[in-house]
C-alpha cells in the first residue's frame, strides 16, 4: 500500500482541525436552529420543504466557500512557507504530496458536510417531530454536494499549483459559475447556427465540469425521487473528471521549480 498520500492527508486534516476550520459548524448549527424555529412558526404545511431547501443550500454554500478558500492555498501556502521543502527531501513523490493534500481537504469537507447534515436532520426532527423514510433523498442530495465539492477542490488545488491564491480563487469561482451554466452555454451556441460558435460552445461544455447535473436540492425539497442511474452517472463523471484534473495538477506541480 502506498501510504505517503495517506500520511499527508491525515496531516492536512489535522491542520484544518487545529486551525479551527470546523468552527464554522457552530455558526451553521446556530443558523439551522434559528431557521427551524422560525420556519416552524411561519410556513405552515411546507416546513419540510423549506428546511430541506435551506439546509442543503447552506451545506452547499459553506462547503463551497471552504473548498475554494482552503483549496487555493493548499499548495501555494506550502511553497510560500517552504514547509514542503523538508517533505519533498524525503522519499515522497510530488504527486503523492499533491494527492495527500487533496484527499486531506476532502476528508475535512466530508466531516464538515456530515456534521452539517446531522444538524439538518436535527432541525427536521425539531419541526416534524419525526424523520420519514423519504428523507433519505436528502442524503443523496448531500452526496451530490460532496461530489461537487470534490470537483471544486480539485480545480482549486490545480490552480494552487502555479498561481497565487487570489488568482486561483477567481479562476476556480469562474469555472464553478460557468460549470453551473455549462448546458446553457452549449444551448446558446446551438441557437446561433454558426458552426464555429457551435463547436466552441460544445467544446467548452465538455471541458467544463457540469455542475447542473449535481444540483438536486429543489427536487429533494419537493420530495421527488432521485433516480439511482443519476447517482451512478454523477459518481463516474466526478471520478473521471477529478482523476484527469489531478493528473494535470501533478504534471504541473512535478515540473515546477520551487522558489
Amino acid at each position, binding site marked *: 500500500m502506498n501510504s505517503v498520500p495517506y500520511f499527508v492527508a491525515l496531516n492536512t486534516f489535522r491542520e484544518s482541525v487545529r486551525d479551527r476550520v470546523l468552527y464554522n459548524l457552530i455558526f451553521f448549527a446556530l443558523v439551522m436552529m434559528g431557521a427551524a424555529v422560525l420556519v416552524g412558526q411561519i410556513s405552515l404545511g411546507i416546513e419540510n420543504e423549506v428546511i430541506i431547501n435551506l439546509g442543503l443550500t447552506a451545506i452547499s454554500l459553506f462547503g463551497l466557500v471552504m473548498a475554494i478558500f482552503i483549496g487555493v492555498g493548499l499548495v501555494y501556502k506550502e511553497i510560500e512557507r517552504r*514547509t514542503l521543502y523538508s517533505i519533498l527531501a*524525503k522519499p515522497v*513523490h510530488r504527486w503523492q504530496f499533491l494527492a495527500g493534500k487533496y484527499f486531506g481537504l476532502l476528508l475535512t469537507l466530508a466531516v464538515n458536510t456530515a456534521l452539517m447534515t446531522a444538524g439538518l436532520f436535527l432541525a427536521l426532527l425539531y419541526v416534524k417531530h419525526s424523520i420519514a423514510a423519504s428523507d433519505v433523498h436528502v442524503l443523496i442530495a448531500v452526496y451530490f454536494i460532496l461530489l461537487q465539492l470534490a470537483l471544486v477542490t480539485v480545480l482549486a488545488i490545480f490552480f494552487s499549483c502555479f498561481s497565487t491564491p487570489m488568482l486561483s480563487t477567481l479562476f476556480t469561482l469562474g469555472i464553478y459559475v460557468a460549470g453551473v451554466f455549462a448546458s446553457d452555454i452549449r444551448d446558446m451556441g446551438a441557437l446561433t447556427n454558426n458552426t464555429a460558435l457551435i463547436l466552441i460552445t460544445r467544446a467548452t461544455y465538455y471541458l467544463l465540469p457540469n455542475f447542473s447535473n449535481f444540483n438536486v436540492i429543489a427536487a429533494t425539497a419537493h420530495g421527488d425521487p432521485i433516480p439511482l442511474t443519476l447517482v451512478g452517472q454523477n459518481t463516474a463523471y466526478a471520478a473521471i473528471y477529478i482523476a484527469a484534473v489531478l493528473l494535470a495538477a501533478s504534471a504541473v506541480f512535478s515540473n515546477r521549480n*520551487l522558489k
Partner: protein
Amino acid sequence: MGTPAIEIEGLTKDYALGFWRKKKRRALDGLSFQVQDGEVFGFLGPNGAGKTTTIKLLMGLIFPTAGAARIRGRSIDDVEMHRDIGFLPEQPYFYDYLTAREVLDYSARFFGFSAAERRERVDRFLEKVGLTAAANVQLRKFSKGMMQRVGIAQAILHDPKVVFLDEPTSGLDPVGRREVREIILELKKQGRTVFFSTHILPDAELLCDRVGVVVGGKLHGVGTPQEMMSIEVQGMELHFELPAGSALPAALASGATRSGAIYRLDVPEAQLYEAIEQLHAAKARILSVTQLKPTLEDYFFRLVGGEKGPSYAVEVSSK
C-alpha cells in the same frame, strides 16, 4: 576509492526573468566537484553565490538547466534515493500547528518505521537536540533557534548516509552553534557524509575535511581548509624587549612598532633568521616568534573581492 557520496557534473541553473520570461539569470554555472563518503564538506560563499541553489537542485526542489548530479551513485531524479539523505533547509519552517514531537513523528512516517520505532527515535532525537522539555509545545511558540533544532532532528532521525545542512548554525546562539558543531562531528564519527553550506567561516575551518568556495555561481576552488589557508604564508611576527640603553638595529627599524617596553617586528619568512641574529647582537630578549597565516576568511575575501579580513597568528615557538 568507492562511489563518491556526492558527484556534481556541470550543474547549471538559469532563472527566467521578466513578464515574458525571456531574460535569463545564471544562478549556477557549470558546477563540478565530488564529495567522498564520510567527508564533512563545507560549501562556502557569500549571499547569492549559489549555495542554496545547489542544495535545492540536489534535493530535487528545483531542476537543473544543464548538468547532472548523483548521490551515492543514484541520480538526483530518483526519489527513492532520498531514503539515504537528510536535509535541513535554510531558515527551516515546519507546520506550526504541530508540536515538535508530532513534526518528528510525521517525518519518521515517510521512512516506514513502526509506531514503537518512531516513538523511540523521536524521543532520542528530541533529547539530542535539547528539545525534550519542549516536545509537546506547538511550533508556533518556538524561537528561531528552537525551530533550527527541530530541523536538524528531522534531518537526521532516520540515520541518513548523507546529510545536507543549509546554513545549520545561522540564527543560533553560541551554545546552539556549539551543539550543532558537536552533532556534525558525531555524524562524521558515525561515518556519515555531511555537506553543509555556511558563511560562518570559523565553523567551516573547525569542522570540514574539505571546503568548496562558490562565488557568482562558479566554483572557485575545492580543498582542505589547510590547503586553502596555506596558499601563501604572509610572514613572521616577533615580539621582543630591549635592555636599557640598547638601540634597535637600524636594519629592522622600518618593520618594528613599539608598545610600552615590547617591540613587534614583521619580517618576511626568508629573513627571519637574519633578523633574530641582529636582535641577539643587540641583546634583545625574544618573547615569541609566530607565523602570520591567512585564515579561511582571508582566502574567502580575496575570492569575493572584498576587504581583507584580519589574519590570526599561529604560534610556532616562544621563549
